[in-house]
C-alpha cells in the first residue's frame, strides 16, 4: 500500500449528501498543515464541497454504497485535489449563472456548482474515464500569496 504521490492523502466517502462537509474539513486541514493561507483555504473548502456534491448527486446518483474518492496532493507550486466518482462524467461546458434570468424565473435557480468551482480555483478540468469513472481535478497555485 503506497500513496499515489509523496505526501498526498486520500479520503473515501459514501455517496450521501452531508459527507461533503468531511471532505471540506479534511481538505482544509491538509492545506493548513502544508501552509496555504486562510483565504485560499476558504476557496478550497467551497470548491471541494461543490465537487463532492456533484460526485455524490450526479456521478454516483446518491447510492450510499458507492464511493466518492478525494485525493489531495501538493508540491512547491500547487495544491491539487481530485474528486472521483463512478459516473460517466460531464459532456458540457460550464455555464455562468445569469442572475437576472434566475430572478425572473427564466433559468433554474440551481446550476452554480461548476461555475463556483471554476471561479474559486486557479485551474479545473473534468475528465471522463469510463468504465472506471470520472473526476474533477482542481488546482490552487501557492504563489498567489505568502502567509
Amino acid at each position, binding site marked *: 500500500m503506497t500513496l499515489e504521490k509523496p505526501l498526498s492523502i486520500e479520503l473515501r466517502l459514501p455517496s450521501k449528501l452531508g459527507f461533503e462537509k468531511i471532505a471540506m474539513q479534511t481538505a482544509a486541514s491538509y492545506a493548513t498543515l502544508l501552509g496555504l493561507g486562510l483565504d485560499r483555504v476558504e476557496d478550497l473548502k467551497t470548491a471541494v464541497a461543490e465537487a463532492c456534491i456533484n460526485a455524490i448527486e450526479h456521478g454516483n446518483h446518491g447510492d450510499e454504497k458507492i464511493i466518492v474518492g478525494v485525493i489531495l496532493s501538493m508540491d512547491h507550486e500547487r495544491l491539487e485535489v481530485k474528486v472521483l466518482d463512478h459516473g460517466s462524467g460531464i459532456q458540457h461546458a460550464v455555464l455562468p449563472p445569469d442572475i437576472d434570468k434566475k430572478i425572473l424565473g427564466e433559468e433554474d*435557480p440551481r446550476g452554480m456548482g461548476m461555475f463556483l468551482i471554476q471561479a474559486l480555483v486557479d485551474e479545473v478540468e473534468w475528465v471522463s474515464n469510463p468504465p472506471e469513472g470520472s473526476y474533477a481535478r482542481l488546482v490552487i497555485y501557492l504563489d498567489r500569496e505568502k502567509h
Partner: protein
Amino acid sequence: MQTETSVKVEQLKTAAEAAVAIIRFHGDITSTSKAVILDAYRALPAGTDKLIFDFTKVDYLNSSGIAILIQLLMEAHKTAQAVHSFGLSAHFQKVFAMVGITKYTHLYPDQAAALTAFS
C-alpha cells in the same frame, strides 16, 4: 444526520417607525433546508415590504443553499420587497458577488447598518 437548519423571524422598526422583518438563519443552508426556509418566508406578515437576512450564525452554505436564497429573492422581487443582508464572512461576500445575487440583496457590515439603510 446532524445537518440542521433553523430560522428565527423577528420584527424590527426603523428610526422612522417603519416595520422591518428579519430572518435569522442558523446552522446549514443546503438542499435539506428548503422547506424550513420557504415556510418561514411565506409565514411573514402580509404587507412586509422590508426584509433583512441575518447570516451571522450560518456554519455552512453551498450552491443548493444559495439557490434557495435566490428563490426567496425571486419572490421578494415579484412583490417589490427590499432585502438587505448582513453577517456573511468575507469569503461568502465574495461568493455572493460572483454569483451576482448582490444585485438583489445589498450586503451590510451589521444589523444596525442594514436597518439604517432602509431609512
